[in-house]
């Protein structure tokens, strides 16, 4: 399906949000947390999948937030502009939030893997879901945090949302006052209230997702049914 880029927004120097307008009369049922697959009309065999950073309540357009990575990421970040045509395959995937009153969604992200969690929090806030959502976000430095201001704003609007960042590659003497170092079982454990009601999500580079899965399933002894993963969100 050919769609039109409605607008673009640079989130970071290497990360851009692309808002793609649905064609007239296009109606689709999809779920927050799914991904869409993009291709340029001139190279339709070359496709890349990106998690939606918008949510299922955002009708009329899809939003994806893309890092300059590979040929597609480079073309989007450096060249995509409003008015461009782009091919879009419909949303797919099973990385879906469980919005139940008793549940606590503990969302662990690395780099651009935070993008689907923006969708989770948007939907929860817009619909006033009584579900607690905690985001633990690993970045190299504070300048790599995507959606920082937006998550802080959503925290204010929704008291059930909390957003925590850890920086892994800060030079000595850096002014960052927040947490430093990789994601650990202890850091995850600090945010668990009732383990049996916690659903763990991990999204990001394969290495981060694999190591997080090992922490959650092996160190924290969480049953596999309580964990969802998405590699390279």
């Amino acid at each position, binding site marked *: 399906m050919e769609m039109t880029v409605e607008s673009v927004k640079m989130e970071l120097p290497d990360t851009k949000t692309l808002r793609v307008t649905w064609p007239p009369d296009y109606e689709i049922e999809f779920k927050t947390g799914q991904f869409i697959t993009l291709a340029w009309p001139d190279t339709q065999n070359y496709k*890349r999948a990106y998690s939606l950073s918008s949510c299922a309540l955002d009708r009329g357009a899809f939003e994806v937030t893309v890092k300059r*990575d*590979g*040929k597609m990421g480079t073309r989007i970040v450096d060249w995509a502009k409003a008015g461009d045509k782009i091919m879009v395959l419909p949303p797919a995937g099973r990385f879906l939030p469980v919005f139940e009153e008793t549940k606590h969604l503990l969302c662990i992200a690395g780099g651009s893997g935070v993008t689907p969690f923006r969708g989770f929090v948007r939907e929860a806030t817009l619909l006033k879901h009584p579900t607690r959502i905690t985001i633990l976000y690993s970045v190299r430095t504070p300048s790599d945090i995507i959606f920082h201001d937006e998550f802080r704003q959503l925290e204010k609007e929704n008291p059930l949302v909390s957003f925590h960042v850890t920086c892994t590659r800060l030079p000595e003497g850096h002014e960052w006052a927040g947490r430093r170092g990789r994601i650990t079982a202890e850091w995850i454990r600090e945010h668990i209230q009732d383990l049996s009601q916690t659903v763990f999500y991990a999204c990001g580079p394969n290495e981060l997702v694999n190591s997080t899965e090992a922490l959650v399933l092996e160190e924290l002894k969480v049953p596999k049914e309580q964990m969802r993963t998405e590699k*390279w969100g």
Partner: protein
Amino acid sequence: MSNIPSDLRYAKSHEWVRVAGDHATVGITDHAQHELTDVVFVELPQVHRIVKAGEACAVVESVKTASDIYSPVSGQIVEINAALSNNPGLVNTDPFGDGWFYKIKLSDAAEPEAMLAAEAYGKQVQG
């Protein structure tokens, strides 16, 4: 469970090497292609390029990610797999055969010996 042929040598970064005399063929493993998911583009090094072991010399992009490929051995590239430009999916369907990346004239015949044997690589990918 990944296919890991016993006659190849493996890098921790998931490349394989098949040695024949003073030449070797290089590709990525079944485990690697499975982790990458559907491969949509492969950028290969120039023929005649001289590479060192551990040097990034190719890029493989899947529908989900782009990854550098590191040459597991040192030497000079003598041939690249031109079929991958039209059919990058060969990396998924036949990673140890038609999905090979390049052939290299080894500058140090001992390097492949220092790489992982199939059993050791199998232990690595199975955690």
